[in-house]
């Protein structure tokens, strides 16, 4: 029974492996996926900040736990134990310290949240009723495309040449969203049937799509991401085929993006097709 205190080693493994696994995680490719959005780094920064903070608390409390278990084992500590019902001052300290920390985190992140969620408005030049040319800044930015979640795919609708959605010249596509690089863009996301969630891991974007509501998301693909494709995931259970709802976001240069739209338009309106022998679509 004198060996009973060795049980505390079991608990010691928790901080050791717990921290160890996080240290090894980047090598295992289990870290936040590459961030290609402009605002993503604030989220990553917050994540890492909280990780260090909680990590420190985690290690400290777990170690204290193990140390006390080890030290005050009944066999190695047969002497009368401390008899106390608590300490008022200690309680005050360990109430105020965490409270302050938590409040700090809370306030620290509000900006990042607002930046992500508040409506983007674009200044629009117009002539007012008094005939003075001015800038109106309360016009919501026009969306670059509308993405509609549907069991089990993402339907994408570009506004077409007239720049207005839901007209006859709209360009339609499925699961394959193209966006221009280095431009802050707005997407309207909708649902046709049930809840879906528009999740772009690499852009740190996630927004549930609620039938009956129009949601908007904003992000900006940073330079250097052009020419690459990123996963578009559905993150809200939408039925049996939830896992199938896979889309792709491709970041294009401005010229590639225009070419893509043109190609889409050409495909949509072409009136002849080359014979199949040469139509190897690869």
């Amino acid at each position, binding site marked *: 029974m004198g060996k009973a205190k060795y049980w505390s080693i079991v608990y010691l493994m928790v901080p050791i492996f717990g921290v160890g*696994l996080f240290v090894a995680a980047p090598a295992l490719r289990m870290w936040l996926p590459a961030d290609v959005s402009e605002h993503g780094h604030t989220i990553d920064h917050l994540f890492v900040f909280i990780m260090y903070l909680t990590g420190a608390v985690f290690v400290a409390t777990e170690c204290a*736990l193990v140390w006390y278990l080890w030290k005050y084992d009944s066999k190695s500590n047969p002497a009368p134990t401390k008899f106390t019902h608590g300490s008022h001052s200690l309680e005050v300290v360990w109430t105020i310290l965490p409270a302050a920390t938590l409040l700090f985190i809370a306030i620290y992140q509000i900006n990042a949240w607002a930046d992500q969620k508040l409506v983007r408005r674009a200044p629009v030049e117009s002539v007012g009723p008094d005939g003075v040319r001015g800038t109106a800044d309360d016009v919501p930015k026009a969306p670059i495309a509308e993405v509609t979640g549907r069991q089990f795919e993402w339907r994408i609708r570009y506004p077409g040449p007239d720049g207005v959605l839901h007209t006859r010249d709209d360009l339609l596509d499925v699961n394959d969203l193209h966006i221009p690089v280095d431009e802050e863009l707005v997407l309207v996301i909708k649902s046709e049937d049930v809840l879906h969630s528009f999740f772009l891991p690499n852009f740190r974007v996630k927004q549930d799509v609620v039938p009956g509501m129009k949601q908007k998301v904003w992000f900006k693909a940073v330079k250097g991401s052009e020419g690459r494709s990123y996963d578009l995931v559905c993150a809200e259970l939408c*039925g049996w085929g939830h896992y199938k709802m896979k889309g792709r976001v491709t970041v294009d240069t401005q010229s590639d993006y225009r070419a893509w739209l043109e190609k889409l338009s050409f495909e949509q309106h072409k009136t002849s097709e080359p014979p199949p022998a040469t139509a190897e679509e690869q």
Partner: protein
Amino acid sequence: MSSHALGDHGHAAHAHDLHDHAAHGHQMSFIGKYIFSRDHKIIGLQFLFSTLLWFIVGGLLALGIRWQLAYPWSKLPILGDMLFSGEAGQMSPEFYTALFTMHATVMIFLVIIPILAGAFGNFLIPLMIGADDMAFPTLNMLSYWFMWPAFVCFGMTFLTAGHGAGSGWTSYPPLSVIESAAPASGMAQTWWLLGVTFVGVSSMLGSVNYMTTIIQMRAPGMTMFRMPMTIWGMFITAILQAFALPVLTAAGFMQLLDRVWDTGFFVAEGATANNAAAMSGGGQPLLWQHLFWFYSHPAVYIMILPAMGMVSDMIACFARKPLFGYKPMVYSISGIAGLGFIVWGHHMFVSGMNPVLGVTFMLATMMIALPSAIKVFNWLGTIWGGKIHFTTPMLFAVAFVSMFIIGGLSGIYMAATPVDIFIHDTYFIVAHFHYVLFSGTAMAVMGAIYFWFPKMFGRMMHDGWGKVHFLLTFIFLNGTFYPMHLLGMVGFPRRLADPYHYETFAHLLPMNQFMTWCAIGMVATQIIFAINFFYSMFYGPKAGRNPWHANGLEWCAPSPPGHGNFDFQPIVYRGPYEYGSPETDEDYYPQWHPPKQGESSGGEEPKPH
């Protein structure tokens, strides 16, 4: 020892009365005694056995999920050919959705909530406060028997097409309402809603009973601040249930109406799925989320507060030291309960709820971490300077603390709204609540079973095998759940039957296979527990009244207690945690021991109730 308390209080008439009760109990038929029993202990045990049975079901469902995540679309062992011959024995995607839906449903509604409140609440509350039974024994019996319709309803969901409800345990509309959106669920979703309603009725009956009993039936001298933490946990839980549950029950009925009678509380106008006719709708899917989380967030505390209480009792007992900061502990439990009512919105940060509202919920959520932190510090304070006995229940109790630290800290990530945008509905969340509910509550429950087993059955469980059970469970649970944090960091989403066709997640397969084998190990380990449990029930060494030398009132009753619990009227002289008190030579000072001559009991004088 506890036996010396006997006879000191030999109120002859009362004892005779009790004896009569006991004799009467013996004459009752088997059915009267064990099936339609109104004795809180029997009801508690009924709850215990039922919930442990469902625990097995829930565990097996979890293995099904893990199998699919480790070996997606490979033939399901054993059941594959029977259930999915049209698909070469691989599980169907709608079966996968049913698996995780029913795993969560079974674990939450049929295991954790009833095992805490139903099994331990019933068994312990009268014993720990010195009452001979619950305030309303018949109501108590009904609260168990209302679980049976729920068992049947949830059982029925497995028997309908698709083998279960498939809208997640949160049952978010429109998926759960528009039948054509999840046609594989069919009637199962309706059965599911009925089942939840019955569980609600059962919990409601229980919580009314617990509140009344705790307020009205305490033994003489048992003031509110002399109640053990377990009772505080149960008390606050009962209050939470009583105030939050009606909202869920009402919302459940609304959803039932939406489903059965085509009302439109939760369905948007014109929503259509699977080419069925568009819904007339006019409702709001978000409304359900608000109503649901208004109950289900407090429910998270319903699932942990009693466990915290039991852990406090076990740690104080095996550290042979008073609980550090008893009153702060009580206040923090109350604080958690109070704040628990205003944080439900943190489940909805990315749901489309107004982002400004999100800020308020974020602030409240941050603050709710505070009482939890205080509790952890106080447990550390209790262990500090104690005289620690590494018994099986103590190992589980300390495991609870150790694991709850992880579960609590990971909660802060979610409270931080911008971070939540990324980790919402990923495995980070799955890791978080498994750390709280399995590594936390389930550990506490296992510890509590080892701890109160002698009181329940009059015999001890095998300590050696108990430790083996603990060690393996502890290793495997961390192997299963800890890597989930890492998966969550990559963005690995929940509830995906085949996440590996996304480039971002394809490389996570080996880790998932590792986790699956840990989960299989974890479930297999519980066989040790089951054997130990049943063997000890019949052949374990006989336990006296107070085998752990604990202070609580329950330990002055016979093991197992007869009908009416106490063979004398217990009177409470002090708080429940007077371990190692200098006032006595022994290292514990039970609540029912009268003060030694010339010494004060250290608190207010006991007043007869």
